[in-house]
């Protein structure tokens, strides 16, 4: 696959929750190595969009292809696909009954069938990278929110995923911890990882995004490179949203 090839493609994708039309005719693609930041008011479908990519939710019509594999319910490929697609959640979702180190190694050992010693070496490498190597033997509950979220990022990295999804990674954090997580994400972006990030952190978006996407009411309203997106958005809805969140 060349650097320009699309690694995630939504082709006229629709998603319903009962009668609620959560995603409306979404067509968009992400290139390998691209950093896409998705923003929009709450309930606009941005979380649903990102959760469809690794099959935590399944779309109802249209075609969604990730890393050459079509995503649909009951697909046999879905488990293999999820190994390639890491995900970081708003609520961290670390495993509270396992230590930090075990949180990082359980995936590689049980899913990727990597040897325990190799998995531990990888885990320590990534803990170093997210700057909390000294917390390896603690349980998640003993860590601050920012540290937990960094462990969660390391957990995804340990799976050696090629795509990383971030679903509002800083929304549940106390303000003083947001930057330590964003710093790690910026570093990750610098390594050329394909990233799809749902966030309200516009400073971060400006710094790393290749593409900005604005969603509202289940639709993609605007797709633009950040310089144009922040200075001269085409749609009025997007402009109104940006005014609201950038104003103070």
């Amino acid at each position: 696959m060349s650097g320009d090839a699309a690694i995630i493609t939504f082709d006229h994708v629709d998603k319903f929750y009962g009668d609620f039309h959560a995603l409306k005719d979404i067509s968009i693609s992400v290139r390998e190595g691209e950093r896409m930041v998705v923003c929009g008011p709450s309930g606009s479908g941005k979380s649903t969009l990102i959760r469809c990519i690794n099959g935590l939710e399944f779309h109802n019509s249209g075609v969604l292809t990730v890393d050459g594999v079509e995503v649909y319910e009951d697909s046999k490929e879905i488990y293999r696909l999820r190994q390639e697609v890491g995900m970081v959640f708003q609520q961290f979702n670390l495993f509270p009954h396992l230590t930090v180190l075990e949180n990082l190694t359980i995936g590689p050992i049980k899913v990727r069938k990597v040897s325990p010693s190799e998995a531990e070496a990888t885990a320590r490498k990534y803990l170093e990278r997210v700057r909390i190597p000294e917390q390896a033997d603690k349980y998640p509950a003993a860590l601050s929110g920012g540290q937990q979220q960094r462990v969660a990022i390391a957990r995804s990295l340990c799976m050696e995923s090629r795509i990383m999804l971030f679903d509002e990674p800083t929304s549940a954090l106390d303000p003083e911890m947001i930057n330590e997580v964003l710093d790690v994400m910026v570093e990750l972006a610098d390594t050329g990882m394909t990233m799809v990030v749902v966030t309200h952190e516009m400073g971060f978006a400006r710094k790393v995004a290749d593409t900005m996407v604005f969603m509202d009411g289940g639709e993609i309203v605007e797709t633009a490179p950040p310089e144009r997106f922040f200075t001269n958005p085409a749609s009025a809805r997007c402009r109104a949203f940006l005014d609201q969140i950038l104003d103070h």
Partner: protein
Amino acid sequence: MLNKLKKLHWLDWLVLAVVLGFFAYIWWKIEGTLNYNWRWHLIPNYIFRYHTGREEWFANVLMQGLITTIRISIYASILAVILGTILGIARCAKNLTVRMLARTYLEFLRNIPPVVVIFIFFFFLSQQLITALNIESWAREIARSDNKAVWEFFFGDMRRFPSLISGVIVLALFESAFVGEIVRAGIQSVDKGQREGARSIGMNRYQEMRYIVLPQAMTKVLPPMANQFITLIKDSAIISLISVQELTFKTVELVASTRLIFEAWITTAAFYFVICFGLSMLFRRLENRNR
């Protein structure tokens, strides 16, 4: 203790007096009307007895019954936890048929009196199983062999093994439904995010259950599980109806042959109470320590 006594209101004393009065009345009825002849001194002999021929102490009927009750309770609990866990997982399964089967089993057990359930399980299941697996002759074989010490330590008199096993099976099947409900509640109490976290690193449904959900669910349900174990010990009295030689059955026999009605039943009640209350205190202490 004294401080607590001082806190009692005069109404409390009245209530206590009424309760005491009630027991005194029962006592008076038994003593006066029934003309019951208390023979408490005979009871110790039915717990432990000195064998004059072999010159050693041995466990007599009540103690034998108690030991059988303990054995059955332990084995039935282990089996019930295994079956109950499977049942609990089945109750949360994605597959509708599996879920319905588990639900049906549970509803049957919930809505049929325990005694009836025990008989049905006994005649339809455990009897058939014992015949099919030829357990009867196998156990007799061991009973006759020389190295039966280990077997007897775990299962008692091997000639009674089939009856013990059907007791265990029947009791375990009966309790598994309730263990299953506890496990289901535990599984459902695990946050949805945990499953998503597991899935996001590529775990399949089995791995997600085995490594992420079940360990957390089981820790959460330890206290109700311990309570269920105590309930099982009490419920084990029912299997005396299918002639398993446990404490209640032995007591019935003892009463029939000696007419020590009150002494024997009070002793048996005390045995159950000491074990169940003791375990309950123990579990409470363990729980507090873990908190």
